């Protein structure tokens, strides 16, 4: 038979145990709190922001564009590669026509190599999606100027370079992925100088001609 005092003693013992267990669980939860807080702040700091500095992170101000070319980008960059390969083919035709001076030969060959390097860089970016061939329609429409006199060939090359720069400008208006845009900008910046060099090589002295200030029309690679 249980006495009242013995029941109270049992209750006290039970309460003490529960209290101790509760304290233990509470302590465990408290010890986990900093870890959970750290995880929370880590996940919030992984949000895309364009903020630098040690102060509180600001709200995102821009939506970062994708780096890799989108499906639409691939078509545009493929057309750019065809334009570069066509330019290389046109310069090959011009070189085969002969009668170049040593300096002219060096410049024309260097520009031809630059177009080839651009096509190769685009092929590296596009991989199996790269067309890897010239635009026959574009080549046919321009090849006549690359078979004439040296002066006529230089003028045709000057017009071609102006048109390629304009073509790349149109691409930059539309490209979404930054990798493709970066490559096209690097190609365009170098090819912009070709026109000035070709004009100087052809004896031009008018500043507006040397600076290619007449706006050119973009090439139609696949009409």
């Amino acid at each position, binding site marked *: 038979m249980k006495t009242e005092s013995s029941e109270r003693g049992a209750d006290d013992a039970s309460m003490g*145990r529960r209290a*101790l*267990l509760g*304290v*233990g669980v509470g*302590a*465990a939860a*408290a010890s986990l709190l900093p870890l959970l807080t750290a995880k929370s702040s880590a996940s919030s700091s992984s949000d895309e922001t*364009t*903020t*630098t*500095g*040690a*102060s*509180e992170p*600001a709200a995102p*101000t*821009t*939506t*970062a564009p994708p780096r890799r070319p989108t499906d639409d980008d691939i078509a545009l960059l493929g057309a750019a590669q065809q334009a570069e390969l066509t330019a290389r083919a046109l310069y090959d035709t011009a070189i085969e026509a002969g009668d170049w001076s040593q*300096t002219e*030969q*060096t*410049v024309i*060959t*260097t*520009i031809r*190599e*630059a177009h080839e*390097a*651009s096509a190769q*860089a685009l092929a590296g970016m596009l991989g199996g999606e790269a067309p890897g061939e010239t635009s026959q329609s574009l080549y046919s429409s321009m090849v006549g100027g690359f078979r004439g006199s040296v002066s006529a060939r230089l003028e045709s090359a000057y017009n071609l370079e102006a048109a390629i*720069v304009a073509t*790349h*400008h149109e691409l*930059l*208006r*539309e*490209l979404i992925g*930054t*990798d493709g*845009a*970066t490559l096209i*900008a*690097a*190609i*365009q*910046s*170098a090819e*912009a*100088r070709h*026109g*000035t*060099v070709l004009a*100087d*090589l052809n004896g031009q002295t008018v*500043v507006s001609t*040397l*600076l*290619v200030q007449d706006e050119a029309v973009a090439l139609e690679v696949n009409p």
Partner: protein
Amino acid sequence: MSQPDAIQETFNRRGLFRIGGLTTASAIAIAACGKSEAGEIGNIGVGQDTPKLPDAVVNNGVQMRTLAGIELSIAAAYQRMVDDDMLAVSSTRFPATGDLTPLITQFGEHHIDSAAIFNDLAVAQDSEAWTCGNTRLDEAYIDVVFDRVVNGAAATDAAKAIQPSDDPTRDMLLLVHTLESLSAASCQGVVPQVSEAPLRAAAAMVGVASARQAALMALLLNPGGYVSEIDAENAQAVAATTTLVVQNTQNIATPSDDGAAGDNTAQGPPSTEILLPVAIPAQFGSLAPIVYVGGAGDENGVRLKLNFETPSLNSFAYPFDSCAAQG
């Protein structure tokens, strides 16, 4: 009670709970009582709070404002050359160039127009227009060049004074080429930094014009310098022949006889060679630093050498920056 029964009663489940709970409670009590900080250091008087740095946001507007500042710095540098008649005097290094004041004035107009384009784009991005030069470019580069060319450098405890430039026109024309190259590279470099295609296209077209101006300047300073030596060699059908110069310990310090360092003083050491620019320096637009060498050489013949670089974190026109604050 037998001995094993006594041991079992001591280490039963209840006992383990009790020990665990007591240990945890003791740890919490000790941790709560412990005080690792000695308290705040007392202030005498009223001190200011630690200032909170503004957010250094880099967005499309900041990029456009920065480019506007770059273009205005370049335009201001050209205007200073024109105002001080620094281009009208014939250069001993580049005697064939003549007075390029009209051309450089035209270049300056291009950069003012470009700054207006960039400011319009910045305003469209909800940023304020940037109507003065880029502070970093002015203070760390352009002003330094002008100061060295015009005034030289005063003597210090460790170095003798440096004279003003022996050919200021040469140094200014080289600076024009450097700044045109910087404009082209900055406009190219911003393309992957902005998120909207129209901004990229606008910057790239300004860069195209600047690249052509850089090419024209290169041809004026270095007639016939169309391509780099490496590209020229690669373009040859046959291997180029080279003349072997035997070098030994007796002539290792002899300067090369290429005429590029031709304006040495009669008695002093040879001055730093000034490399001539070429119109097409590479197959792709480069974002590498653009090296400027100019001014008179110091006691060892070393000229001022600066690496002009495209905008970065220390040269952006942040939202908290303003032309009014620049003074």
